[in-house]
């Protein structure tokens, strides 16, 4: 089975080629069959490979396949090679699994769109790129996937290109991602010129010999890579593109901007955990940025009215959690949250898509309400996802989020302050998610009559994926139960071979204080559950029970509310500080430096000669007498020369 590894990314690529080259010539049924089929087949191959991998002994779980040499120049030698290890196995399952469901969902969602073929071509291309990203066995190939998903994100956000805001958002996403990629590139350069290779295996193996642990070089390298991650995974300060990315079709938001692409940064950090473990300062930055982003985005999420934007900020916030986990060296917890998040956030987006579908493409929650009875399946599945994301015990989100919170508290890289940030965020998350639920599904129906007429539950192709994802959102967490429940954390165990884990000294420390910590872990768990429940109550009180109170509260906090609704004016800040000056500077370069100074200098030189010649040409008056005068004068000079010279 191992030799078929290349099929996993190849199948979606074939789907893309078929749909892309024959765009507009295939009937919709064929298009959707090709698109879903290719991803479905890829999923099947991925599952088979997963079991192959599982059959191997824990230490030898690695399947590699080299296709050909891609770039080679002197000592640089980059292969087009894929690598399947426990980490990438999880990723391909998530990508193909969630991807497949979203493809299926899209068949229903996009049924009425004119550019059906183009949509699925892009979606397949995205799946391909994402699979390349996670299966790459070296940095450069990962970068290929990295930029590839960025491209698809660009194309899909700007899918409805006739809408100015959509194409703007696509461009913004791509450029912000490029800024991150810039960091990734630099990080790659540093690593290459020190290690002499870009292969993950070689780098992991040689890094301890080459880099001084905690040294400047490795810290800078890791920080550069992290800049890449902040771009792709929408962390402070490069998160600004993700909320705008909601201009794309909703399944795209679910697939790219919730479940898969945005988690690439987390994956990358987990993949290079060996390096990060050698750079504690970099890890600290990761943790702080992650925690800060989690809180920051969650506060913005409180005041958004667009259903997708709430989810977008929620995604940013949850990604912050994952980075927090990575930052405290709990990489497997980060990946675990990545997986559960993929399930429930994809579900939330698809649910939101279903709502938007029903609402004739309206996204403002203030115009919704009371949809519960109209969209029962959507409501149920979304409620499950909401419970999961809020961290209600038993649901998948609870296990992963709790693990992160606990690790941020207990890990040798952790800190109480980080835990506090994560803890508050958990409360905020529950609040804004239930606000969403209450505003959308409960209360009076605030939509206009025309919209109301068209409200209908989505077709089967859309609801079935919702239900499957709902199931996964519930049970997905069971593979990674905390130790205190007495269960085995299969997930952590599975990932153990590829994770560097905390340094030896810290691990023993953790073991020694295990007894003391168990009670602490229980306490923290209860605390967060209690906070979540309180937040849910508050949401219920403000948006269900006593909506007037919400209004008066909003009035009291109008300043804060405006700030939040305007996302802390970060976009405006970037616009004023980066973009405007850059454009003005460019104009200056063009109009002043290029046209006036450089070209002006050259043209000035030319016209100087022109003027000189112009002055001189008057000597050529055409008058015989002046010619004769000059001639005689010349004769005088020549004669004088000889006369005086002879003396």
């Amino acid at each position, binding site marked *: 089975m191992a030799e078929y590894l290349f099929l996993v990314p190849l199948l979606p690529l074939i789907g893309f080629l078929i749909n892309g080259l024959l765009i507009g010539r295939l009937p919709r049924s064929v298009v959707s069959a090709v698109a879903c089929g290719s991803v479905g087949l890829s999923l099947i191959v991925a599952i088979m490979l997963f079991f192959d991998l599982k059959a191997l002994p824990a230490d030898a779980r690695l399947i590699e396949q080299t296709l050909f040499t891609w770039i080679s120049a002197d000592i640089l030698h980059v292969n087009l090679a894929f690598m399947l290890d426990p980490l990438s196995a999880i990723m391909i399952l998530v990508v193909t699994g969630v991807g497949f469901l979203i493809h299926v969902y899209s068949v229903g969602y996009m049924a009425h769109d004119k550019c059906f073929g183009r949509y699925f071509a892009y979606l397949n291309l995205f799946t391909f790129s994402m699979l390349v990203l996670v299966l790459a066995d070296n940095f450069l190939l990962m970068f290929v996937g990295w930029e590839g998903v960025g491209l698809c994100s660009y194309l899909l956000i700007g899918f409805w290109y006739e809408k100015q805001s959509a194409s703007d958002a696509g461009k913004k996403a791509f450029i912000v991602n490029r800024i991150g990629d810039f960091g990734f590139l630099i990080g790659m350069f540093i690593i290459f010129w020190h290690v002499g290779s870009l292969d993950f295996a070689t780098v992991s193996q040689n890094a301890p010999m080459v880099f001084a642990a905690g040294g400047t070089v490795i810290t800078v390298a890791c920080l550069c890579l992290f800049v890449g991650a902040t771009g792709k995974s929408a962390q402070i300060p490069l998160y600004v593109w993700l909320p705008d990315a909601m201009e794309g079709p909703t399944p795209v938001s679910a697939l790219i901007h919730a479940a898969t692409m945005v988690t690439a940064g987390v994956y990358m950090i987990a993949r290079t955990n060996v390096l990060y473990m050698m750079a504690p300062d970099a890890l600290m930055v990761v943790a702080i940025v992650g925690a800060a982003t989690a809180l920051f985005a969650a506060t913005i999420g409180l005041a958004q009215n667009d259903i997708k934007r709430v989810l977008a900020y929620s995604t940013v916030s949850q990604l912050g959690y994952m980075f927090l986990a990575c930052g405290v060296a709990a990489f497997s917890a980060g990946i675990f949250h990545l997986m559960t998040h993929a399930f429930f956030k994809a579900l939330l987006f698809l649910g939101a898509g279903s709502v938007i579908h029903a609402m004739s493409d309206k996204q403002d929650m203030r115009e919704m309400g009371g949809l519960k009875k109209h969209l029962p399946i959507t409501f149920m599945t979304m409620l499950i996802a909401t419970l999961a994301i809020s961290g209600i015990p038993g649901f998948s989100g609870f296990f992963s989020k709790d693990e992160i919170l606990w690790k941020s508290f207990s890990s040798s890289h952790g800190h109480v302050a980080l835990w506090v940030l994560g803890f508050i965020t958990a409360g905020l998350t529950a609040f804004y998610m239930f606000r969403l639920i209450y505003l959308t599904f409960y209360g009076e129906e605030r939509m206009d009559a025309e919209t109301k007429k068209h409200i209908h539950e989505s077709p089967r192709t859309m609801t079935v994926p919702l239900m499957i994802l709902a199931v996964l959102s519930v049970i997905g967490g069971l593979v990674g139960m905390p130790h205190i429940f007495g269960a085995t954390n299969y997930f952590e165990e599975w990932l153990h071979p590829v994770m560097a884990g905390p340094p030896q000294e810290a691990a023993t420390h953790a073991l020694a204080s295990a007894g003391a910590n168990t009670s602490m872990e229980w306490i923290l768990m209860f605390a967060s559950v209690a906070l979540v429940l309180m937040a849910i109550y508050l949401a219920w009180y403000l948006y269900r029970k006593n909506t007037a109170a919400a209004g008066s509260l909003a009035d009291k906090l109008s300043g804060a509310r405006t700030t939040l609704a305007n996302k802390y004016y970060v976009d405006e800040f970037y616009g004023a500080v980066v973009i405007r000056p850059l454009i003005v500077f460019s104009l200056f370069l063009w109009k002043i430096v290029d046209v006036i100074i450089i070209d002006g200098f050259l043209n000035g030189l030319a016209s100087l000669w022109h003027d000189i010649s112009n002055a001189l040409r008057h000597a050529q008056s055409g008058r015989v007498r002046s010619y004769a005068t000059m001639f005689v*004068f010349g004769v*005088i000079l020549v004669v004088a020369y000889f*006369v005086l010279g002879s003396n």
Partner: protein
Amino acid sequence: MNLDTVIFIVSAVVAVFGATMMIAQRNPVASVLYLILSLVAQAVCYVQLSALFLGAILVVVYAGAIMVLFLFVIMLLNLRGSEDLGQPPKALSRFTKYTIGILMTLELVFIIKGAPLKAMATGLIGKAPDGFGSVEQVARLMFTDYLYPFELTGVLLLIAVVGAVVVAKSRKPGDPEETQTEETAGTNTNEAGS
């Protein structure tokens, strides 16, 4: 001061006077007459230098024929010194031109003064050999040593004749001026030929 010197001084003064008046005149006819005066004075100097033949030629051909040709042309064109000659030149440019002319003369004089003329004939003109400058002597040289240049001069004259005819010929055959011009050209050649 012997007679030679007196004759030389007189003829030199007349030659210079004639030349000066020639360029100072506005009326071209007067200019021509002054030039003839100057040429005749020069011919006297030639004779003084025992160039009898050339002195004669100068008077006959130059003062006689060529200058008459000039006069013909002036009359043909009906110039009376009242033609539009444009703006008189500015004082500065006039001054420059005089300066240049004077400079040129001074330079030549300077050369003459500095030249080792005393080495030959002690700077004075002694007695000329017998028959020097006679028609016979000049003719003998011309038809022996200088035969080819002489013949070439003949060719040159022929070319000049043809050239003058072509140049002065009117392009428009029906032009009434044409015949007149051709006549002039014809006169030219005749005169030059003689």
